């Protein structure tokens, strides 16, 4: 938050005291702290050998499944992603979950239609129309934002979990691989070319019948966003404006 730094004294003991108060006040909102502790504690547990065997067995099973599936005709990964992207020209609602090292730290709801989108991370609503971005806070006030601006206390990966943007980026900045046909749908994996900002890998499962993304997983360095399809209920244009929420 650039304005936090601007609103602090320059240096020394006075700065330390202001930062002390600043930290205490920021920490008054700490809904996810139990999950963070649990996740850290979990990381200190030794991995069991059985887990290794399970992972090996699972990898073998996947390999055999892929060999089996390649006997069927599969569309190219690029075509599958293009179909899924096109589907988002209509209203879609996805439930989002953010994990930090395996523990759930935040949930969100996304509604997307073409360039319009809104995300609710209770009690905050954020939305956009391809250009302007607005945020409506718990006090009901609406402010306009620039996408790259620092949003106060908002995880920087959150807006990168916008599925339409993610699918568009998959086509342009990722190496795509068709993994195969799975229960959740056609599984396509994208691995980022180079070291750009954003997710390192994106996995999508595309419902062949409906032609839409059934599930997506965006893997950031320590964070993973999972999006799951909820419904395709149509909404009026006004639904994507702050006044509706």
């Amino acid at each position, binding site marked *: 938050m650039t304005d936090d730094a601007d609103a602090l004294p320059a240096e020394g003991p006075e700065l330390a005291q202001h930062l002390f108060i600043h930290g205490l006040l*920021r*920490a008054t909102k700490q809904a996810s702290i139990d999950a963070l*502790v649990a996740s850290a504690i979990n990381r*200190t547990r030794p991995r069991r050998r059985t887990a290794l065997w399970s992972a090996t067995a699972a990898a073998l099973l996947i390999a055999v499944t892929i060999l089996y599936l390649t006997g069927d005709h599969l569309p190219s990964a690029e075509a599958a992603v293009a179909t899924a992207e096109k589907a988002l020209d209509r209203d879609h609602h996805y439930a989002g979950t953010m994990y930090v090292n395996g523990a759930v730290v935040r949930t969100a709801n996304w509604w997307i239609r073409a360039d319009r989108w809104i995300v609710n991370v209770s009690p905050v609503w954020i939305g956009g129309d391809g250009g302007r971005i607005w945020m409506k806070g718990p006090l009901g006030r609406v402010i306009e934002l620039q996408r790259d601006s620092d949003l106060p206390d908002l995880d*920087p990966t959150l807006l990168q979990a916008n599925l339409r943007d993610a699918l568009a980026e998959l086509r342009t900045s990722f190496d795509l691989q068709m993994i195969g046909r799975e229960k959740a749908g056609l599984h396509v994996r994208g691995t980022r070319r180079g070291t750009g900002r954003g997710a390192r890998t994106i996995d999508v499962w595309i419902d062949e019948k409906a032609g839409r993304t059934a599930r997506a997983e965006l893997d950031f360095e320590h964070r993973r966003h999972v999006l799951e399809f909820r419904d395709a209920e149509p909404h009026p244009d006004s639904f994507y404006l702050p006044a509706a929420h």
Partner: protein
Amino acid sequence: MDLSAREVFEILSRSHAPMLRAYLLAAVRREADADDLFQEVLVAAWRGLPTYDRAKPFAPWLRGIAFNLVSDWRRSRRRDLLCDGETLALLDAQFGKLDNVAGDTWEEKTVALRVCLGELDEEDRRVIDLHYTGGQSCDAIAAALTQGVEWVKKRLQRARGRLGLCIDGKLSMGGSP
């Protein structure tokens, strides 16, 4: 019943987690970075547990690990920190003031903060609420209050300064309001 080292560590980690998170939130700009560092500190603390002297308090030892990790992190992420290394050490001393406050929980140790918030004048309190509870930027607060951004920054600075003096006063009286 004797507790295992892991059980003791879990209990200590959970009871000191709010302090650790507040310390990291004081030092870094982004909440997401504070959360990442938080986990790294606890993992490093578990690995370093054999070096921990159980006769000494846990909180300063944990902050010492946090200080080292934040200092390392600062080499590559200087712009994402709110202070330099020297101020980081002074920050540790600020948090050290809470170590000896009576109380088993973070809520008990920070009762002075809540009392002092209640003693702020209405305008200072409003700016603090909008910024820290409402998560609004100085620009947004300025627009909401039809004031200039510099006015908001000065208000925030003044309110934090007053809170600092008030908390120091309460703590010097033994932590009770």
